[in-house]
């Protein structure tokens, strides 16, 4: 029963990918390449590339891709349902605890510690994305001289516009995409 297998495989991916992002990659590879042979290693590498080019979390993207390949549209829906089910159950339990105990001094203490830590973590993600945009995949290893000046100019302009005029973030991203096509494709 392919649909049940899809559901259970992606359920495990959803349940064990703690820490978000690329923590899920080896789990997905284990399920779809090693255990079930739904994809070859090189197809899996393509899914990773594709996932970087499309919006959404890698685990959902992989679920849809593999589901479509193995069981069509229904397969995609079932694999996606499998990957989000553990999140739904566990997050709802945590959310209920949070709402019930919010205001309790111990929980406020924990949250008082978590909030600045989360800001630090988002800051580290920001730094990673800035380095990726300015220096490419190799990052700072290739030296400060390898900075992409077109990217730097566009980023500074976008940043100033966001700070000064509070424009819609999605609009800014879309316009940057179009300017990127002009900067890299035509100039």
């Amino acid at each position, binding site marked *: 029963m392919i649909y049940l297998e899809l559901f259970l495989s992606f359920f495990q991916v959803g349940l064990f990918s703690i820490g978000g992002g690329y923590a899920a990659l080896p789990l997905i590879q284990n399920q779809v390449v090693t255990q079930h042979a739904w994809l070859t290693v090189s197809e899996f590498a393509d899914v990773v590339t594709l996932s970087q080019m499309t919006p959404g979390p890698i685990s*959902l*993207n992989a679920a849809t891709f593999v589901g479509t390949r193995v069981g069509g549209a229904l397969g995609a829906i079932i694999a996606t349902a499998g990957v989000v089910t553990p999140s739904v159950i566990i997050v709802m339990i945590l959310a209920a605890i949070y709402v019930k105990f919010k205001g309790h001094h111990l929980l*406020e203490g924990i949250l008082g510690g978590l909030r600045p830590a989360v800001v630090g973590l988002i*800051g580290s993600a920001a730094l990673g994305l800035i380095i990726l*945009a300015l220096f490419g995949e190799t990052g700072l290893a290739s030296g400060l001289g390898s900075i992409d000046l077109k990217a730097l100019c566009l980023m500074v302009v*976008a*940043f100033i516009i966001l700070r000064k005029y509070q424009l819609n*973030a999605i609009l*800014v991203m879309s316009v940057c995409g179009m300017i990127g*096509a002009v900067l890299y494709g035509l100039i």
Partner: protein
Amino acid sequence: MPDHTTQPQFYRRLFLNTLTLSAFTFGGGYVIITLMKKRFIDQEHWLNENDMLDLTAIAQSAPGAIAVNASILVGYRLAGWRGAAVALMGTILPPLVILSLAALVYTQLITNPWVVWILKGMQIGVAAVIADVVITMVHHVLNHRRALQIVLMLVSFGAAVALNVNVMLIILASGVIGALWLKQAPVLEDVE
């Protein structure tokens, strides 16, 4: 917490908001957090900054993708399980539709130079957006003028960037430190 569900077309707006944010989440889970901050705090005024940081910490601590977890949490915080269901649908639909289509033509897609250039431009835009939001969040932490929180922010940043410490470990440690040394503190008010 005011009842937002009585606002006109609340569920429709929640669905469309999560749908749009999910469709533009390039570059990992924290990007959707910054987009959510801009949309739900600055534009819709449904949440405040502390709510968002709490939900992010919970989203990060639970298994699964941060984007999915954070959407469920925002929906639940605003409108209980119904809100959670609506936000979840909005979040999973874009990857489901986009990847189903992309699976059919993916070899042409990943080798098309125009797609690569547009994405490069969007990557630059994403970096600007996340930098903008982080600066606002850092201001917010600094404005509380609590030394321990400022230290926790800097140490978490340093641990994640320079030492590559596991994110779960950072979350766990700062929660324990907060429980031990911040619990007598008055509930933090929004400094806005």
